[in-house]
């Protein structure tokens, strides 16, 4: 993984999460803005998938368990897709809150992935 890229990604995911949760609690239904914010999170995740494929070949191998890393990454990729699908099916303000919570989950998982890739306690 590339630390600065992951950091940017986490910041974007947290920002998208805050935005959607706040807007959702204010009673807004999923809009182009909230769904768009999740789309940006998803786009960055897809870039991360490409980075994770290329990085080991380019002399940036993971120090941790690659299987665990990929389980996290694939799960993270699925979350915004699931949330956006939900938001399209049910246009209530809770769907907006859900979009935000999923963005937070992605942020936490990215942090875990960076730890798996770089820091080994055992």
């Amino acid at each position: 993984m590339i630390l600065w890229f992951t950091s940017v990604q986490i910041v974007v995911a947290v920002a998208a999460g805050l935005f959607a949760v706040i807007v959702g609690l204010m009673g807004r239904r999923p809009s182009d803005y909230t769904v768009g914010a999740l789309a940006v999170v998803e786009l960055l995740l897809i870039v991360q998938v490409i980075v994770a494929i290329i990085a080991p070949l380019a002399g940036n191998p993971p120090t941790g368990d690659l299987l665990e890393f990929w389980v996290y990454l694939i799960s993270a990729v699925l979350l915004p897709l699931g949330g956006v699908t939900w938001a399209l099916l049910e246009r209530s303000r809770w769907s907006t809150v859900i979009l935000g919570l999923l963005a937070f989950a992605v942020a936490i998982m990215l942090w875990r992935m960076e730890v798996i890739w770089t820091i080994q306690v055992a």
Partner: protein
Amino acid sequence: MTTTQPRSRMTGIGRVLVIVYAVMALAATGRSFVQIVRRFDEAPLAYSLSALAAVVYVIATLGLVFARRRGWYTVAWVAIVFELAGVLVVGVLSLTVPELFQHDSVWSVFGRGYLFIPLVLPMFGIWWLRVHRPAARPAAKTAEVNA
């Protein structure tokens, strides 16, 4: 009337609850899959518990999704109470008998590794189930929610 508004609102929060359960189910399943594939021998008890927890989260998620049906409502209750008991028992044991749980499971130290969500979630789930007894609802209301 006055009761209609909060009830529909709680149905909405129920959706959030289901999603959080689904994410926990995904997280627990993914984690226990990795643990069992990679190093089951190191901590069979902790990793078996992780797998069990994952199964319970999946069942609880399904139970909540279909909670309007009587059978699933009971399933949701059983799964969520089991989950609460699990997080409490494993939480206490992981502090008092740490040698049993040298490897983390979802429920170690009351779910610390998951921001204590495993501890809070079943309480929220039980509250939601109590508020949403399927029998307590008029049929019309159920049909409306289903639509």
